[in-house]
């Protein structure tokens, strides 16, 4: 239980700030694509009997890099993402069905299995989350600038292509890290919902990023507790708490702006 809590908190601290960029840059579907592709990675690593994390990481990074490349070339990105997201999910599920020898609980990868987090998992989650957090903090200003305007970023001496690639690869990394915690279908929720909830309280990008991390972490702890008490699935319970934050903060926010 403590390990599960720590895993959730670790993921949330990295997903919050990174999720802000997903919200600002309207990359939600982009994130979905990478996370759905991760199930293909899971299937492949089950087949090849290598670590799930490694398989998911490789496939997620590969798809992230590919989508980034294609978007640079100006492909109609929305359709392309749709094709990639669902075909890789479908292929992944089909591959898994061929693996007759092993009994596989697919639900664990689709919705996470945070209560089964091992010591090693926890190490991987915190390592990956720290790496994401360090890179986001280090490249914070250039990342913000490319979000505002690419030419603006060029004129300030940064290469926007590099920063865009960084965001994509970080998304790949966070997806691989988060599979154990919330599963591939709910990862994007941990990126977007805390960030969107934090938006109502923040006046600068930095406060929004920090608040998103905190809201995500509180959601993880409260969600786990709720799952334990109510005997509900852990990953979805965490997302439900985050969604409640979003709802309440937005209602309060619109009341405030209505009054003033």
């Amino acid at each position: 239980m403590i390990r599960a809590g720590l895993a959730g908190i670790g993921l949330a601290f990295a997903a919050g700030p990174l999720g802000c960029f997903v919200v600002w840059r309207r990359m939600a579907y982009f994130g979905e694509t990478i996370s759905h592709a991760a199930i293909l990675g899971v299937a492949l690593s089950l087949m090849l009997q290598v670590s799930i994390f490694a398989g998911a990481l490789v496939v997620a990074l590969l798809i992230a890099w590919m989508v980034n490349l294609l978007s640079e070339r100006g492909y109609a990105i929305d359709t392309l993402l749709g094709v990639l997201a669902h075909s890789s999910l479908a292929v992944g599920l089909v591959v898994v069905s061929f693996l007759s020898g092993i009994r596989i609980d697919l639900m664990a990868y689709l919705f996470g299995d945070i209560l089964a987090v091992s010591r090693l998992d926890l190490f991987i989650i915190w390592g990956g989350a720290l790496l994401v957090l360090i890179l986001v903090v280090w490249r914070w200003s250039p990342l913000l600038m490319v979000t505002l305007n690419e030419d603006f970023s060029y004129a300030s001496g940064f290469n926007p292509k590099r920063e865009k690639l960084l965001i994509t690869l970080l998304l790949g990394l966070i997806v691989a890290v988060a599979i154990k915690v919330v599963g591939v279908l709910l990862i994007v929720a941990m990126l977007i919902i805390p960030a969107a909830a934090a938006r109502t309280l923040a006046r600068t990008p930095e406060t929004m990023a920090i608040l998103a991390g905190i809201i995500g972490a509180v959601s993880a702890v409260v969600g786990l507790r709720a799952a334990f008490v109510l005997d509900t699935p852990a990953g979805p319970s965490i997302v439900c708490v985050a969604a409640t934050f979003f709802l309440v903060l937005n209602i309060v926010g619109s009341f405030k702006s209505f009054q003033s």
Partner: protein
Amino acid sequence: MSLIEVKNLSVIYGSRIALSKVDLKIEPGEIVTVVGPNGSGKTSLLRAIIGATSPAEGVVKLKPDIKIGYVPQRLNFNSSLPMTVKRFMQLTHKGGDKSTIMALEEVGVSSIMTQQMSQLSGGQFQRVLLARALINTPEILLLDEATQGLDQPGSAAFYRLVEDARQNTGCAVLMISHDLHVVMSASDRVICLNGHVCCAGTPEVVASAPEYKQLFGMVTERTLALYQHRHDHDHDHDHDINKSHADQ
């Protein structure tokens, strides 16, 4: 030496030639304006200068370690991104609050420090962009259609600020614009662009050049009316499209 030297520059997107064999030099302290109809390659020229697009042919030389103040056409401030004016000003400047206030005072908007960027009026927004570009005391200001969305008095006031900035800091200015009259009166030199340099010189010279009249004839006659550009004009001096393709 020149701040910016563009030699024989061609920019090609796929099969479309945006710029063909353009030469341009910007000296310290001068205000140069690039005018031209939509699709004439104005933005491509500016993008080539800041390194956002690579030339198919020719070179762009910048003075080593040049400090550029860039005022973009627009920024993607959607409501999902919270940003106070103060925070935005300090995005590329680490000088603290005092210099931020001073820079905003210069352009007459020091009272909006704590407001959200997404809630500013068009005029305030452009002024903040100008202040941000000026805060690092650039050697050259690059303005990309910086008064789009402003009415005529608004644009005129904005260009006065640009002139003031040049006066106070001695920076050069390169701007591209639609607002022919307002802009030209404030410029030392005007370059009329339509894929290539049609004509160039002082505002008076350009305004009376036949190439300019051909491009903007309708506009000069009816300044305040909404105007359309005529794209079906011809030039006597030819630029060989196929040739610049083959040169690649």
